[in-house]
């Protein structure tokens, strides 16, 4: 094992034989998919106040993933969605597969014993979340990036005493792979390196790191994530669909705001999803309290003790976050600024009281200079 690690470190260093990390920014500043005078969408934490005006829940949607949550009928199975039996089959498949896409328990132990640096991981995850917000990537893209990063570090510790560039290179490669897996429009490798990246790596260096990551992960990028379960669990909890949009949106924010916390590595995606939905449900006023025990019946394989543990951890972190920074109050919603947010964006967000809508975002994305983006979803010929 020691020999393999040594060879691995040589491989990593050889990435830089011909291209050392540059401390300069790219000559051409990356383009944001929205006008200069507007701030990017903010990963915000929303709690509803005591009423929903006119039953319009659209104000509860998070900037990154509002598309598609509320634009169909509130029932849990819309006309263009799969029928419930198929959903249950897919969920069973996700439950069966999820164990293959989580780092082992010893990985978490290495953070607890300080043989791995939790603060360095936290910094990397914070950067991934900033870029996710900057480009309005889907939440699952950020989650997958972190999943790849953790699974890589679980298999291959990075060389120490390197000023942090290997971890940043790994973060860029993981984010690039996740974006290519999930996004229809992917920024160029240079443009991905925004939001306070200390080093800027050449595309060929990132490409070589991508191949290294793919080798270590055995090309298993199609991870099961908490987002695979959210809609299904939300419908289990709220079969009328009245609050489904809010539950999914809020649970998404909870998952993303907790992703930096290494302690969550103790829980599998289905468990994190169940705990996040429960947490979101208990923020809805006048709803009877939903207990973690209720979630065990949602599908085969959920364990009450695990859900309780995960739920309690989420509660602790919410309290912890609230103590760090008092929540700002807006009409109709309470916005708790969670750690991944770029502070400079907050004031402009509060002034406009909403992030750019997903539809306007997608329009702006289309206006981007095509040379900067890879649009990989075009049809092919017969």
């Amino acid at each position, binding site marked *: 094992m020691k020999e393999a690690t040594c060879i691995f470190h040589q491989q990593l260093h050889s990435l830089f034989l011909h291209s050392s990390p540059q401390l300069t920014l790219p000559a051409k500043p990356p383009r944001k998919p929205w006008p200069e005078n507007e701030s990017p969408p903010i990963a915000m934490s929303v709690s509803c106040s005591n009423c929903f005006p006119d039953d319009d829940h659209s104000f509860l949607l998070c900037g990154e993933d509002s598309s598609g949550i509320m634009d169909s009928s509130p029932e849990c199975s819309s006309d*263009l969605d799969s029928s419930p039996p198929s959903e249950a089959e897919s969920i069973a498949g*996700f439950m069966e597969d999820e164990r293959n896409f989580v780092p082992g328990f010893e990985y978490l132990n290495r953070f607890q014993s300080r043989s791995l640096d939790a603060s360095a991981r936290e910094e990397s995850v914070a950067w991934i979340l900033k870029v996710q917000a900057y480009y309005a990537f889907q939440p699952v893209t950020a989650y997958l990036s972190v999943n790849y990063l953790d699974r890589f570090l679980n298999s291959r510790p990075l060389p120490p005493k390197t000023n942090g560039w290997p971890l940043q290179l790994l973060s860029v490669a993981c984010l690039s792979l996740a974006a*290519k897996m999930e996004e229809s429009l992917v920024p160029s490798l240079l443009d991905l390196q925004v939001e306070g990246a200390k080093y800027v790596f050449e595309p060929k260096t990132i*490409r070589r790191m991508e191949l290294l990551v793919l080798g270590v992960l055995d090309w298993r990028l*199609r991870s099961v994530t908490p987002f695979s379960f959210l809609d299904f669990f939300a419908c289990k909890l709220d079969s009328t669909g009245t609050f489904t949009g809010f539950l999914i949106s809020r649970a998404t924010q909870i998952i993303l705001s907790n992703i930096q916390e290494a302690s969550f590595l103790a829980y599998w995606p289905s468990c994190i999803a169940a705990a996040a939905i429960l947490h979101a449900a208990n923020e809805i006023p006048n709803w009877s309290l939903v207990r973690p025990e209720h979630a065990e019946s949602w599908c085969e394989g959920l364990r009450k003790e695990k859900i309780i543990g995960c739920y309690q951890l989420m509660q602790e972190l919410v309290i912890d976050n609230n103590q760090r920074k008092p929540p700002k109050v807006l009409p109709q919603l309470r916005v708790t600024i969670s750690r991944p947010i770029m502070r400079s964006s907050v004031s402009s967000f509060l002034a406009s009281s909403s992030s750019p809508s997903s539809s306007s975002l997608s329009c702006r994305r289309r206006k981007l200079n095509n040379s900067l983006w890879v649009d990989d979803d075009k049809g*092919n010929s017969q």
Partner: protein
Amino acid sequence: MEMEKTGAGVAVLSAKEAFEKLEKVGEGTYGKVYRAREKATGKIVALKKTRLHEDQEGVPPTTLREVSILRMLSRDPHVVRLMDVKQGQNKEGKTVLYLVFEYMDTDLKKFIRSFRQTGQSIPPQTIKSLMYQLCKGIAFCHGHGILHRDLKPHNLLMDRKTMMLKIADLGLARAFTVPIKKYTHEILTLWYRAPEVLLGATHYSMAVDIWSVGCIFAELVTKQALFAGDSELQQLLHIFRLLGTPNEEVWPGVSKLKDWHEYPQWNPKSLSTAVPGLDELGLDLLSQMLEYEPSKRISAKKAMEHAYFNDLDKGHL
């Protein structure tokens, strides 16, 4: 040959050292496909070559999706087996990836064409066996959260000797959450494209694959594409002529789809006029695969349980 671990400290042969290329058998978006022999075992394989442009955007998204999905699905007998991924360099010293697949000697498009050329019908039991295998493979994909999105005869590989069918070419496949969220609608070869996709729906589901399966079913019987449009509009009109122009009654929500317009009004015809030679049970299954309303379309798993397959010996499939 199991898929190699390409991580640190593992000595692996390059593709050039490990394989002898025999002939080019096809060309895809990112590179060529070769029939090749594995030198160590003499086994015949298919090598799918993917170029990585040195200063561009790393591993192409379609390659990432295809390989990662196959890493999950390849254990199913009705999904083509990805045996290995090898890294090599071409003559100019550029990095090349080789995906090593089990070799299949034909595909369903060629298989159908061979019957069309000889004027013979494909035996009904052969059609039944191929359809069952296709439903089984798709049920496995859907059960693991994968939409294929580009099912067509060309992407269904076959072994003529054993009559085994395997789903291939998952470069356009996508993982989905439940229910399915927004996807681009510019996917899928026109002839096998579901009406909700043609009408601009971006929320779509496993049902898009089932529509394609239905079109393939009809094509196996008639040896002609069921709906052979040469534009999105023509494709829709072909569908409407046979199945009737949809409305809110038969398909609630259809008129709210992005690309819905006022179309000529046709009444539905009997499927037997378009697919003569298919028995009653087959027509019933086909009609459930070609339901307009996606949520009413039969699932792959339910299709496998349909009475049409009752007299099929499923033991070896």
